[in-house]
């Protein structure tokens, strides 16, 4: 039996408070909605929280080794689910993301996030390959790209972006120098900078000086330079391959005013909501942007805007502090625990949650593009909540068994 007294209650409490705050905001966000279904979203979310908490409770009672051993198996299962969803999934708004189990819909892409963390953590924990060895990098890239491509096929650009983030954070946590990471990521930067020829030339000079200073090996340097050149030249090519709505999202992100009724409209209305809330907020049920439906996706992607409008800056800061507690505890647990696998899992989870928080909140505040990434714990959505609580379960489990190898 577990000794409940030594569980990380600060962590659990923070996650629980975030989930409850989420339910309250889901309720206020759909308070005046026309349909009964929308008005009772918060009830459904409460049931999901109970399910999520049960799964959390089950996880913390498991032997930690179980996840280590089964990592590849669950990874394989999740890949099968991702393939399945393309054939038997239910479509909404042009994307096939959900598998329907009677009353419940679940998104295999959420499960794949967890299983990728497990599989990568296991591989990186036990491999004898050098941190920067080509085989090690290649294998992990392949492991990441498989689910990512399947998710891009749905299509779900927003979720697929999370997968490389998991990969980079686990590379980093398993010892790869951030300089190296920067070099690996440099073709992406090249892609962006390439839109301006002078900037691109300057960028290239900096990149070569960087390579000369770091001396990462001739072959590696050549590959970096070539991929950077390619990155810079394929920009127009990639741009032309993007779907119209993706182009629009990027353009709208760069200039929200260009399409005030489309995606830009969402950003503008979200900024108005958050800004008009001020320091103290307009009060629960009183947010006019929320109540009068100016805010889009109030209970999912833009839930943070509702928080900002009705509870103001103090409400937003409380939520941020709770996230801060989770991240701080998680990093300390990952640092302390003796199992490299468990440590990797905790940090994979932490960076994934941090990335989602940053992208989602950044979107509602207008400095990140509209990606459709949910805010962990708060956004309406069962699988997302179960996933978040599973990650909390793994972190708490790791903490409880920190001395085990």
């Amino acid at each position, binding site marked *: 039996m577990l000794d409940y007294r030594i569980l990380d209650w600060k962590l659990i409490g923070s996650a629980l408070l975030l989930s409850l705050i989420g339910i309250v905001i889901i309720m206020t966000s759909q308070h005046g909605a026309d349909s009964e279904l929308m008005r009772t979203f918060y009830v459904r979310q409460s049931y999901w929280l109970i399910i999520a908490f049960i799964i959390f409770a089950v996880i913390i009672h498991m032997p930690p080794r179980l996840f280590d051993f089964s990592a590849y198996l669950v990874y394989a299962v999740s890949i099968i689910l991702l393939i399945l969803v393309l054939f038997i999934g239910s479509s909404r708004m042009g994307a096939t993301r959900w598998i329907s189990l009677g009353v419940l819909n679940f998104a295999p892409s959420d499960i794949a996030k967890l299983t990728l963390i497990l599989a990568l953590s296991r591989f990186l924990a036990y491999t004898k390959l050098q941190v920067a060895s080509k085989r090690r990098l290649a294998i992990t890239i392949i492991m990441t790209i498989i689910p990512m491509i399947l998710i891009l096929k749905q299509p779900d650009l927003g979720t697929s972006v999370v997968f490389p983030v998991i990969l980079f954070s686990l590379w980093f946590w398993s010892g790869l120098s951030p300089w190296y990471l920067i070099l690996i990521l440099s073709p992406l930067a090249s892609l962006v900078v390439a839109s301006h020829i002078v900037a691109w030339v300057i960028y290239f000079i900096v990149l070569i000086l960087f390579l000369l200073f770091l001396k990462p090996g001739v072959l590696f340097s050549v590959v970096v330079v070539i991929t950077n050149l390619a990155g810079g030249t394929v920009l127009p090519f990639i741009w032309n391959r993007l779907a119209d709505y993706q182009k629009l999202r990027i353009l709208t992100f760069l200039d929200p005013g260009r399409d005030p009724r489309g995606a830009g409209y969402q950003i503008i209305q979200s900024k*108005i909501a958050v800004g008009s809330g001020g320091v103290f907020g307009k009060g629960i049920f009183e947010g006019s942007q929320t109540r009068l439906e100016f805010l889009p996706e109030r209970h999912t992607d833009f839930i943070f805007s509702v928080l900002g409008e009705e509870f103001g800056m103090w409400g937003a800061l409380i939520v941020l502090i709770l996230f801060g507690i989770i991240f701080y505890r998680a990093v300390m647990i990952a640092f302390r625990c003796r199992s490299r696998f468990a440590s990797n899992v905790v940090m994979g989870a932490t960076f994934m949650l941090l990335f989602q928080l*940053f992208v989602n909140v950044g979107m509602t505040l207008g400095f990140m593009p509209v990606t459709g990434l949910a805010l962990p714990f708060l956004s309406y959505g069962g699988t997302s909540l179960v996933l978040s609580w599973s990650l909390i379960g793994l972190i708490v489990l790791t903490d409880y068994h920190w001395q085990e190898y």
Partner: protein
Amino acid sequence: MDRFKISLESRRLLTFIIISLVFLLIFIGLFNLQVVKHKELLLKSENNRLRVVPIIPRRGRVYDREGKVIIDNRPSYTVSVILSEQVKGVTVPKLAELLGMDTSMVRKRIKKNYVSRYQATPIKRDVPFNVIAVLEEQNSSYPGIVYQMERVRQYKNELNAESFTGYVGEVSESDLKNENEIDYRLGSLIGKKGIEKQFDNILRGIEGTEYEEVTAFGQNMGKSEEKETNQSVSGADLYLTIDNDIQLACTKAIDTFCCGTMIAMNPRNGEILALISYPTYDANIFSSVIPESLWNEIRSDSTHPLLNRPINGLYPPASTAKLISLGAGFEEGIINESSTFSSCVGGYQFGDRYFKCWKPSGHGVLKGVNAIEQSCDVYFYQLGLKLGIDELSNYYDLCGFGKITNIDIPNESKGLNPNSEYYDERYGKNKWTRGLVLNNIIGQGEILVNIIQLAQFFCGVANDGIVYRPHLLKKVLYPDGRIQETTPIESFRLPFKQKTIDILMEGVRLVVEGEHGTARFLQNDQFTLGGKTGTAQNPHGENHSWFASVAPLDNPEIVVVVLVENAGHGSEVAAPLAGKILKAYFNKKESNLPVVMSASKEEVN
């Protein structure tokens, strides 16, 4: 490759740095929106939330001098559909059935007028009341179908009053640019012509505003509690100097002719009792959307119903102008009561041109008043040569011709009063002959007048030389009960001494009562009258027929001027019409209905 490794402690430190950066960025974002830009964004959220709804005031009614309605407001119903409340397969067919349209037409209208699912999409305007009654009684079987009422102007069509009522229409972009009209917004109604335009600021009242809360989709959530409603103020009612009955008599009289214009005026104060432009169009067509076919029909009509004849119709005054000529002769000392010119033998030789008199057998030797009585052209040819073009033009000018009368309806034309300066410009210096005066003195040639100018001149003759400004507005009744009466304004005085005016009055008397008068047949037992006939030569067709009359002779109280286009001699056509109108006036007066109704003292206070 160890330089690519990084210690656990460094990794932890770096992780905390990254987490801190993320939180810092989010905090900066929050601070920027919620503190720095808070006021601006709060205003934007209020603008999102509140919709300003104008409350349209009742536009003032317009009555005749006795309170009979000339312009009224009537309710007009528009049937609309609220798409968020429609029932598929029921609403559209029901709507089509109700309005007698087919479903594809209904769908077309929905597509065309769609604003939002929650806002009424208008389908048909000016739906008859019985349809609205059906809708009201059985509203549960018409899901999502609603109607709105608006007030539209109703002009009393049988009055033929469009020449002075004008009409209203939606404010145009150019109107909005006019800084005097800052109170208008796009979609407001504004007077476009006539009384409606002249007194628009009095008639329209003050628009109110109401704030309602709306959702992003335009659904009305009810009146805003924080913002107070600003009630509208109704427009003032106008009482015109027009007499409904005289106006009707005029309309009836001119009915059998193609085109013409008429005016009845009180010489003692300039009040216009009747004003007719004939033919005309129905001003009510401007209250709803005008079908293009109807508009084209009106525009291409050869009788020019859109020409506002009293103020924009310009005609040679013909022999009616002989009073001015004669007056000028007396004033300039060229003639006196008993002086004569050479005998009229049916024409007059001037240079190499022979100027005919209207009577080929000639009038013989005449005195001034008899020259008026018989309208002898030859007498006036000789007078004109002594008077000269510029002196004559000067008298025309002093009698109010070639300039606007300042009547209280807009866009008056001023006509043309030619003088040597004008001819120099038109034909070149010394390129024209002095003989032109022979035309001008009998009111032919280039001189052009409108009927109001001629009427005000005859009013002056009938009123000892004092000309009151012709006007239509009698009084204004404000919604708060205040009454503002129009006081007659003396416009100018005729350039004639009393003695001259007496002679002119004797002339007009002889036209009716004289042995040889051109309108002898108008003599009657009911009332005395004087007048002057005129036959304006019209190069484009039949002559225009003029008659200007004054009655009764001992103390004139009404001046009636009639012009019938392309109708022939003044004595044959216009004079009998004027007679009918005067008869209507005196009949009404005798039947004890006070025609000149002045407001009693109590009303003023």
